[in-house]
């Protein structure tokens, strides 16, 4: 079973061989490292850039305008804050030019907490990303979705911000990517050896054009009593909680993994909430002007009389950063016990 990092790597290989991707770049993206999470290891078109986030996004935008389909990386989303105006230009270029210039570029960046990353390796960017109108924003929670969303992002004529949950980069999924070999074989084929890599070349498995439509959520656990809307690192935590609730007879919880934040799958959210009447939003962003607050407001506007209990948000605490000490990080960010507590309260709330 591929890890998320391997899945992204294989999708990028498909991009460089089948979809016309000629430039994959960023800090330490090329050899010898192949990315700090190894997501670009062994790729033919991957190269190292100067340590300059503004140059990276500017280069991607210029390449997109020149007709390339670049994939650029910001090494950690925590470093993306000094390029927000260039991301805005990427997002608004099609609109500001009256539709004259398309912007087919992908910016991928590891996001969120869970790796003991402290102040500047734990940030989430979801809510700010959702304000870059014109930019599509995706965030997978499984390797197969990571593969499919990357293929879709490369094919898109819009700029796509591809958020990679840091804590899930080594995680494995439950579904195979079509054409994926067994785990040991895959490791021998595409993982670089330790030590000298100068003569190493990967052997890529033949993977298909599997893609996940941007803007489509996935029901990762069907249910009828309550809905959890989540994405990224929180998605497997919510899935585990839903399974536990089902196993213990505590309620039937539907987990909706958004996968795309912009555009979000409003039809899927509405359909699930229509069924359950109860909804909990779970994400890693801080609670002040959280992306999910918009979704809650829209639910209240459009489905007020179908809600059986007040909608809830479980999010990060609005601290200036994520603290290093595990007890503090776990206090700031939602944990499995928090999800279970919030779900229990939601289910117990009288209609």
């Amino acid at each position, binding site marked *: 079973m591929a890890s998320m990092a391997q899945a992204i790597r294989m999708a990028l290989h498909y991009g460089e061989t089948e979809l016309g991707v*000629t*430039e994959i770049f960023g800090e330490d993206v090329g050899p010898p490292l192949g990315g700090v999470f190894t997501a670009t290891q062994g790729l033919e078109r991957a*190269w190292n*850039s*100067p340590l*300059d986030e*503004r*140059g990276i*996004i*500017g*280069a*991607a*935008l*210029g*390449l*997109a*305008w*020149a*007709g*390339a389909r*670049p994939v650029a990386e910001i090494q950690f989303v925590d470093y993306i804050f000094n390029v927000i*105006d*260039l991301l805005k*230009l990427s997002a608004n*270029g*099609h*609109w*500001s*030019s*009256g*539709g*004259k*210039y*398309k*912007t*087919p570029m992908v910016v991928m960046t590891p996001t969120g907490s869970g790796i003991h990353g402290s102040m500047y390796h734990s940030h989430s960017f979801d809510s700010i990303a959702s304000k870059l*109108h*014109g930019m*599509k924003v995706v965030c997978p929670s499984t390797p197969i979705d990571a593969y499919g969303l990357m293929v879709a992002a490369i094919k*898109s*004529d*819009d700029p796509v911000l591809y958020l990679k949950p840091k804590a899930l980069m080594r995680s494995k999924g439950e579904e195979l990517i079509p054409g994926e070999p067994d785990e040991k074989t895959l490791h021998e084929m595409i993982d670089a050896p330790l030590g000298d890599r100068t003569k190493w070349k990967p052997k890529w498995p033949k993977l298909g054009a599997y893609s996940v439509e941007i*803007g489509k959520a996935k029901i990762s656990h069907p249910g009828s009593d309550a809905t959890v809307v989540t994405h990224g690192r929180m998605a497997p935590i919510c899935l585990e909680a839903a399974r536990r609730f089902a196993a213990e007879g505590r309620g039937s919880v539907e987990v909706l993994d958004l996968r795309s934040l912009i*555009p979000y*799958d*409003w*039809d899927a959210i509405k359909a699930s909430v229509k069924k359950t009447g109860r909804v909990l939003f779970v994400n890693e962003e801080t609670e002040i002007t959280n992306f999910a607050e*918009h979704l809650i*407001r*829209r639910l209240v*506007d459009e489905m007020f009389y179908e809600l059986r209990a007040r909608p809830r948000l479980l999010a990060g605490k609005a601290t200036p950063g994520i603290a290093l000490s595990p007890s503090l990080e776990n206090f700031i960010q939602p944990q499995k016990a928090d999800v279970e507590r919030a779900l229990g309260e939601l289910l117990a709330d009288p209609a």
Partner: protein
Amino acid sequence: MPEKIARPSASDPYNKLGGQRLLGVHELMVRSRLLEERLIKMSKGGDGFFWIGGPGEEAFNVPLGLQVKKGHGVDYDFLHLHYRSSAIVMALGGKPIDAIRQMRSVATDPYSKGRNFVNHYAIPEWNIVPVSPTIETQYSTAIGTGIAQARAKTDAVTIVNGGDAGTAEGDFHSCLVWANRPVLPLPILIVVVNNGYGISTKEETQHGEKLISDWAKVFPDMPARTVDGNDVAAAWGALEEAFAYVRKNRRPYLLEARCSRLYGHSSSSGANRIPEADCIEILEKNMVSRGLAKADQLKKVWEREAAAIDEAHKQVKTEPFPADESVWEDVFADGLPPSYPTKGGS
């Protein structure tokens, strides 16, 4: 009084350019100037809003535009311009009526459909990428088209154009660093037009570097030059040298042009005429004194161009403003999803 004719000299840069070419340059400079003056009047007269433009830069920008390899795609020059680049666009063949449309923000504005400030061009047919109101970001995006052209087998180059004050931004230095990467030098003509001001702030109060082109000194393989941008012949020659270098060597060149800023920063500073050297007056004197044109002949150019701009402005006043719902066009390249929120709240 008969016009004073200087003795022709073959080495004289004006004589070398020749009367025919200079008349063409002059016409484009006049067109650009009159266009900018009309845009200023529109801004002041309530026929548009904010004005920002480039009157005073014509002697440099027209020769630049005329030396561009114009077309679409990596085999043609890419232009990362800013809001003072109108004379470059006129030299490439831009129509004054389209800038007037953008000033009035009518539906027919071909550059932004009534969404952006005047002089914010986007012309894919000529590789003019979207001009942004943000300062200096064009020096970052130039890296991208530069990479595309460095990979291609072509003599086409990327041109980036901005002002002196913006060189304090990191994007300028990003451009210098990326253009000079040893693994992949980039064919970028890095232009800085130095008018001595950043809005109201004098350059010498903020910049310790003697010349902006001195930034090239830390990159031993990058040539650089500072040129009098108010002088057509000097500008033409410097651009010719710089273009030739970048086209042939596939490496960057830093060119600083000293130009006047004849109407201040923008409408925010009043957009009134400022007594600085006027490059069109300088050109006309140089042409007439050499017998390359007659004063009457040049005067007629002003009259003809002014009449054309009057006519264009009249036409634009008959054109409709954009429909409200047009704001939902072009948000995404593949259209707006049906469930995208469009109410602006509850």
